């Protein structure tokens, strides 16, 4: 396999690698690492231990080459996006171009909706970076629909040993607009522990506080849920249509809450994901508050015949920031 740096592109190159065998994956990753070393471009590989070992054996320690442990499960997309943006900014202060390769995790069904939104919005949110980002997925771990989503969200595709322009790539706004139908979480089919009609943000906060005080959840998760629910209710009152309904479920150490109103929800397909300092983000609009909520809790949006629902959930095992990188040099 010969790697040529994504056609020598400048700007942000977002490439998809779908592999069917471990050997195929290793061949790609090692060639990518070797090419990066030869090009003397700072390169981060977020890969699983066996992949890291293979790279170390074959390529060896090298300047510019950094290996991070791959994430084991999806984090919070908006938070990951913010962290990646900061990481790229940091690297690009010292180098003209940077490469990142992610060996992607197996994504639970409940997270796929936000995951594919993230893959789409990455193309805009990181467009200002001169970076080459490669997403490596195991094709056998994906349904056909998921593989289609990935093809629709990566402008570049590794295919038949070459970096190719992906004809299946879709405009991110169009793609996300077609996927505003995230299914309800199975928990939502059960009777909620509490349902409040037309709450004020203060009532929403008091409700969450009451039902989380003995949950055993980390304080930061509870605070995040209180803030997100308060924001969701405020947005529903200001931008949505009554009635506004807050529902809350507690199950298996997790607290989930939804806020439904009869409106259409945010018109911005990137709501919650794009950084707060984008030109179209205003402090008095719903964008910044949603973006903050996405940093603090698991958030999913959906439109449905009755209106719009935002679902917010805590995570019993709070996401950890990435471990300190191991530099192989």
């Amino acid at each position, binding site marked *: 396999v010969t790697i040529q740096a994504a056609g020598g592109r400048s700007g942000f190159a977002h490439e998809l690698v779908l592999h069917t065998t471990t050997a195929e994956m290793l061949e790609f990753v090692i060639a990518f690492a070797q090419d990066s070393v030869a090009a003397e471009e700072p390169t981060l590989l977020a890969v699983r231990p066996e992949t890291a070992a293979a790279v170390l054996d074959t390529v060896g320690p090298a300047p510019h080459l950094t290996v991070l442990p791959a994430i084991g499960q999806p984090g919070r997309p908006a938070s990951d996006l913010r962290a990646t943006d900061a990481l790229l900014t940091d690297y690009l202060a010292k180098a003209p171009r940077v490469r990142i390769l992610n060996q992607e995790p197996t994504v639970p069904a409940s997270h796929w909706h936000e995951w594919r939104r993230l893959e789409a919005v990455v193309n805009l949110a990181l467009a200002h970076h001169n970076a080459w980002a490669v997403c490596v997925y195991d094709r056998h771990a994906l349904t056909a629909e998921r593989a289609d989503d990935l093809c629709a969200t990566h402008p570049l595709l590794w295919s038949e040993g070459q970096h190719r322009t992906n004809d299946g790539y879709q405009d991110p706004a169009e793609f996300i607009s077609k996927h505003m139908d995230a299914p309800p979480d199975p928990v939502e089919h059960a009777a909620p522990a509490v349902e409040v009609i037309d709450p*004020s*943000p*203060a009532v929403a*906060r008091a409700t969450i506080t009451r039902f989380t005080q003995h949950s055993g959840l980390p*304080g*930061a998760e509870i*605070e*995040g849920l*209180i*803030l997100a629910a*308060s*924001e969701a209710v*405020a947005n529903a009152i*200001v931008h949505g249509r009554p009635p506004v309904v807050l529902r809350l479920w507690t199950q298996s150490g997790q607290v989930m809450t939804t806020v439904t109103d009869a409106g259409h929800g945010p018109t911005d397909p990137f709501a919650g994901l794009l950084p*707060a*300092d984008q030109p179209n983000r205003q*402090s*008095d609009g719903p964008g*910044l*508050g949603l*973006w*903050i909520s996405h*940093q*603090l809790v698991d958030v999913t949006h959906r439109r449905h015949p009755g209106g719009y629902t935002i679902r917010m959930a805590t995570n019993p095992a709070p996401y950890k920031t990435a471990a300190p990188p191991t530099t192989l040099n």
Partner: protein
Amino acid sequence: MSGPWVVSSPIGRTPGDHVCWPFRHHHDLVAVARSYLAEGLARDERVAYVSAGGPGTLRHDLGGMPGLDEHLERGRLQLVPLDMLQAPDSSAHPAGELPLLATMTAEALDAGYRGLRIFANGTTRVRDPDRRAKHVRYEHVIDRLCRERSLTMLCAYDRSGLGDAAVAEVACVHALAHGGLSPFQLSAAELADVALAGSVDTFSTSDLVMALHRIDVPAPGNHMTIDTAALEFIDHRALLTLDQYATSRRATVMLRSAPGVVRRLMELLPLGAVRLEEAP
């Protein structure tokens, strides 16, 4: 609404307390005044009843209080027509701005009382919106005076006549309040310029900035510290608006003892004039 600033009873007060007490009916006002003043008398404090009207009207309000005539004769209980309390001027120090209250407090202590306890029905002072705006600063200065001297004050306002929103404008600058009309309290603080307690969200952000403007903090061009140890909630809009307000006054605001959620929010927001004080 709950919190250490919320009071449910006019009694149980100690020197330094400054309480806002909204009422609906005159008989409620009188009942509160009597129990509040009786507690002061029992604690060997000098007490004063301040309300609109002449001495006869004021005495009538307290009619039936045990030992009323003797308390009045001995000077333990004073009846003060509201007009005698001076309106605020622009001087900065509470004792300078409120000479009568400061003098009354000093006289009570000199006479051997354990302090001065005042009940004031300020309703007529805040009917006019412009006058109410000025009165908010007056109440804040009283808040500082109570904290600095052995003064206990309960300020009553007629919510049925004024409306809840108008009373909330005044209530929010008392250290303590009955009725929960304001979701936040902006009070004098021992180790900061002011203390902010309670909650500030989308629907109360403008009220917070209006209150800060009325009590004139931060002073233009100055640095100020807000004690936020009892701040239960604040959202990003409130923080951004506070930042814009401070910037417009060329001032900076330091948040002391900020709760975790405020710290997390501030990590995410591009603020210039509002900062977190580092933990010692």
